[in-house]
């Protein structure tokens, strides 16, 4: 690192190409943001990240301002905090008051609510028209489109374009009439949307929500997160499994997942309900006189072993081919390949995941 700037009175070294915001964040400065997602090109929309820059007439948005050698930056002066408070009060005023945003709506869904607490913006100032127009009529079963909560930060539009490459959603109209839309203001299922859910997870207000997870909003208990890997395919996306007590209530992508950096596909994101589905088998079944009937584990293992041995004896070990299910736990997938490779000495092992 060759260049340095002064940040709140202390010298900090930085690399060419870093923004003031990036430097401030790694220097543990708590600079607030709403339109920022570090995977996306900074847009400079919310203006909460403004800082004082010596020599500049006005505060600058730190997220879009590249650091240059010798800059003198102050991240939190009285004047800056006053602007941030006013901005927060303004943005809170554009949504209907008093709506509880369940954390199951999405990973970033509490950002605005937390900011409102930080700046004591309770919605009592700047009353006036609200800007969002909900599309709760969208019949898709996965994504809630509650634009009454929308603050036009455009994170959803940018994540869809820059991360997912789908360009399914965009910005309609301008000014206070701005809305998030699809082509011709239609439903998601008629658009280019792949239901990857990334827009849901980056939304800082819960305007976009995970409908599958929200079915569990009323389940009592605290949400607990368990880090895991999505079993559906070979990419290996990191996920956080959300649970309340022993009930699975949702899945969220892991921002620090090396393979996915916060991305998932429709399966990893939304297809987990089967885990706790009533139709799942609860005992092994064996076929007797052409009918599947419940059996004990011992009986089932006996029957399976008998079948495998018979095939191996008759056709040789390479006649055995196993396909593990993408819906089975990782441990099972591991056991199956061990069983086939070590047990039978064949390489005919595969997995159904082909995402």
């Amino acid at each position, binding site marked *: 690192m060759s260049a340095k700037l002064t940040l709140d009175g202390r010298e900090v070294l930085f690399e060419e190409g870093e923004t003031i915001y990036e430097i401030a964040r790694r220097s543990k400065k708590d600079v607030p943001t*709403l339109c920022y997602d570090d995977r996306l090109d*900074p*847009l*400079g*929309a*919310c*203006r*909460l990240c*403004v800082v004082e820059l010596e020599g500049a007439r*006005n*505060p600058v*948005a730190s997220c*879009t301002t*590249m650091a240059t050698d010798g800059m003198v930056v102050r991240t939190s002066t009285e*004047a800056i905090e*006053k*602007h941030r408070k*006013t*901005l927060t009060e*303004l*943005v809170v*005023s*554009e949504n209907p008051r008093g709506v509880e945003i369940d954390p199951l709506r999405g990973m970033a869904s509490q950002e605005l609510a937390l900011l409102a607490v930080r700046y004591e913006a309770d919605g009592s*100032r*700047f*009353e*006036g*028209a609200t*800007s969002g127009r909900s599309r709760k009529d969208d019949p898709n079963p996965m994504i809630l489109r509650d634009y009454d909560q929308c*603050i*036009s930060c*455009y994170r959803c539009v940018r994540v869809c*374009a820059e991360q997912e490459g789908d*360009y*399914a*959603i*965009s*910005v*309609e*109209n*301008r*000014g*206070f*009439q*701005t809305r998030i*839309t*699809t*082509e*011709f*203001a239609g439903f998601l299922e008629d*658009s*280019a949307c792949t239901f990857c859910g990334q827009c849901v997870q980056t939304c800082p207000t819960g305007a976009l929500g995970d409908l599958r997870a929200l079915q569990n909003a009323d389940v009592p208990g605290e949400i607990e997160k368990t880090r895991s890997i999505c079993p559906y395919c070979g990419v290996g996306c990191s996920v956080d499994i959300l649970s309340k007590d022993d009930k699975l209530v949702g899945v969220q992508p892991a921002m620090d997942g090396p393979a996915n950096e916060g991305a998932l596909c429709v399966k990893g994101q939304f297809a987990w309900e089967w885990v706790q589905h009533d139709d799942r088998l609860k005992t092994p079944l064996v076929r007797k006189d052409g009918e599947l009937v419940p059996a004990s584990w011992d009986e089932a293992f006996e029957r399976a072993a008998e079948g495998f041995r018979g095939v191996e004896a008759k056709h040789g070990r390479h006649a055995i081919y196993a396909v593990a299910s993408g819906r089975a736990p990782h441990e099972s997938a591991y056991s199956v390949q061990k069983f086939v490779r070590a047990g039978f000495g064949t390489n005919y092992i595969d997995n159904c995941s082909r995402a």
Partner: protein
Amino acid sequence: MPTDQDLLERWKDEPAPLLPLLHAFHERDSYLSDDALRVVSKGLRIPLADLYGTVTFYHHFSRVEGGRGRPRVCDGPICKLKGADTLLAELDGATAMPCAGRCDDPIPVLVEDRYMVGTPGSELAETPAPMPTPNPGEREECCFAHIRAEGRATLAGYRDTGGYRALARAVQEQTPGDVLDVVDASGLAGRGGAGFPTGRKWRAVADAPGEPKTIVCNADEGEPGCFKDRVLMDYDPHAVLEGMALAAYATGATRGFIYLRYEYPHTQAILERAIAEATEAGLLGQGILGTGFSFLIYVRRGAGAYICGEETSLLNSLEGKHPFPRNRPPYPVTHGYEDLPTAVNNVETLASVPQILDRGADWYRSLGEGEHAGTKIISLSGDVLRPGNYEVPIGLPLETLLFEWAGGPPPGRSIQAVTMAGLSGGFVRDLDVTLDEPCLRGRGSFLGAGGIMVFDDSRDMIEVARQAMSFFAHESCGKCFPCRIGTQRLTERLAGEAGPRNADVWRAEVHDIGHTMAAVSACGLGIAAPLITESLLRDFPDAVNAHLENGR
């Protein structure tokens, strides 16, 4: 009737094709249908959702059948005084459009590409824009020096009055550096609003790596109360073209765009004819005047969005992107059109250049009052006897312009306030100022693009302020929070639609919103808009009190 394919073939390989292609469909079908957008999306490889969103950004693109033919009636601040609301009600299916740049005339009405003017109860007439009157102070002019000469808009007439002499000399005898030196020395600064020194801008483009370089003539003239660029283009189009060619020669640019506001369709025809004439005569195009210097100019018509006059929003619009302003730095001089070095200049700035090169930097400097260099065209409108465009020496006392040149207010009236920079400079009540940036900035305003609207003592300043703020709210692009929400909240408060009832709380809210908008908005629109409310609070406390007592 041309097929979809015909239209696509006509435009898809042209530079900056999106706007002209959309206009072609808009003209053919009288609106932009879903099918048309599908064809354009596929043909230009723009995602359909993006295209749809972008089309809805522009005020004049209609998405309902027959929409293009519906009359658009100007309801800008001055036309409101002339009865725009009545005219709107009189005309079948009419909708309002923001100031259409003809405030010194009756009310503009646009029907398809016919630009007419009229007042309630009268016939609409397609008449040319008023010619500036001979300078009432008999001051020497730069831009208007020859504009009144017969036939100046034609190539022959332009050359008869010295036109293209500067360009010929530049390309045949001078280096680009020579041209830059003259422009630098003249003190010419941007006439589009920001007042950036033109020589410095051009030098930055000349020095920036990357090719091809581009000259953009900003002819969006969206600021309410500004109608000077139109007059220059209508009556002196070759001066604008020559200015662009000189800019290109000085910077090394090879292509140019004129970004023209939607509301000036006949101006487009004038410009296109002038470009054809000049190209024919070897003054534009490949190998200008037999030298190795080439420069092509394309006219691109906007579609109704004030923000597209902001240079980076303009560039996004040209490129077919959603017209939000870009974050700066980098500036257009290094990362402009298609991310390559670009000089964006106002029409008036460019039209001054041929004269400056022809007559010299010292001559131009000497046109200003005292220390000030050069001239500025002021579009004067509202409650004065002789509204119109006046080219004033920079530094002229405002009162000289208002009372001596323009005849003062109507008999029996006095001037209550004027606006500056169209609406962007807010209100000025104390008329004892001079028309130059140092003086006006010292009073919390600025000269900007030079639109001055006059309001006499019969006018309701709260209502004028409400209209002004609702213009900014209508035109806010919606990118940044302070402006998107702030313009809305200020409009509501001025209209008495929402907001606190307690007068002190009301003032505190209005002031806090304005203060934050001015400090942290992402572009000049949001930074300037609160000058309306700030000057209202400062200069018209009684009107504010009355508003709070009665209306709320």
